[in-house]
């Protein structure tokens, strides 16, 4: 199946959603697994994590990735906008 090219922001959303889901379920973040689920090569996934940390959406404590309040807010806003656009008949 042909996969649509995602924008940088869609990738951030996917990564943050996966990490926050793992946080909720109490699972330990295994970066390779999250990268695989986000459908990203590992080096690109690492760059994405670095950028999310710079933006303050992730905090990278030694050995533990935590989605910050700002990151969770971004996920909520993105979901709302996605829902809005879907109901406007615009499929992303």
């Amino acid at each position, binding site marked *: 199946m042909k996969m649509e090219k995602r924008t940088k922001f869609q990738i951030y959303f996917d990564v943050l959603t996966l990490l926050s889901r793992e946080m909720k379920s109490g699972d330990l973040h295994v970066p390779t697994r999250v990268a695989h689920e986000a459908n990203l090569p590992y080096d690109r996934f690492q760059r994405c994590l670095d950028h999310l940390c710079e933006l303050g959406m992730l905090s990278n404590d030694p050995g533990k990735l935590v989605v910050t309040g700002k990151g969770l807010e971004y996920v909520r806003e993105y979901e709302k906008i996605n*829902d809005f*656009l*879907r109901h406007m008949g615009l*499929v992303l």
Partner: protein
Amino acid sequence: MDLGSLCIVISSHLYHVSLLASFPIWGMQVLIASEFVSFVLALILVFFFLKAYRLVRSLFLVGLPVGFLFLAFSYVFLGISLICESDPSMSQSFLWLRLTTQSYGYVFIGFTYYFSTKNEEATRSFLVAVSLASFLSILLPFGILLMMPPFMKVPSVYVVDDFFRMMNLILLGYVVYHLVKHLKTSGEPISGLVWAPSAFSVLWVGQYSLLLWGIDGSQTALAFAHVARIVALLLLLRIYYASGRRV
């Protein structure tokens, strides 16, 4: 232009001018107020669509804030043209601006839906072409006024406004068609998806009422067109406020 065509052009202009002149003062005030309300509602939509673009950054989404911004300006231009109705040349210039901004607004909205299923490169080329065309055509009415020798006159806006309205009807018709098709293929509950086609259908009905007003001069059609436009904008705002609650 032969004499017959000239007579049609002049009679069309005089007919439309007399339509507005026969409107009571309180009616004009209500029309101006409705333009202001539409402007505010359209600006709120611009803000939400801009927010959506900034968060998602898909290029085709640029068309929505730009389209609604054009529509917002078109409401302001119509309001100003009604306010300065006593100065026909000024009023005409603003009506020209109103016609072009409104149609470009619908072009951007219509093509947003068209390009929502196309690739990024095609969308980019389209945006550059339409932005350039809209910029030039909006500057044109004032440019012509400034550069034209005083003995010449700009053609009456009333002669061409029906063509613009028909173009708007086609563009809105396409958006409604796209949304109804999306409604059928999405497989989601219809209750949530029905608002957008409803809003654009009401906008379509509003444009159609304006077309009727241009033909038979019915003040009911004019009033209905204004009410329909405000209802349509409110329906679009409703979609934003209802979204997220369903997530």
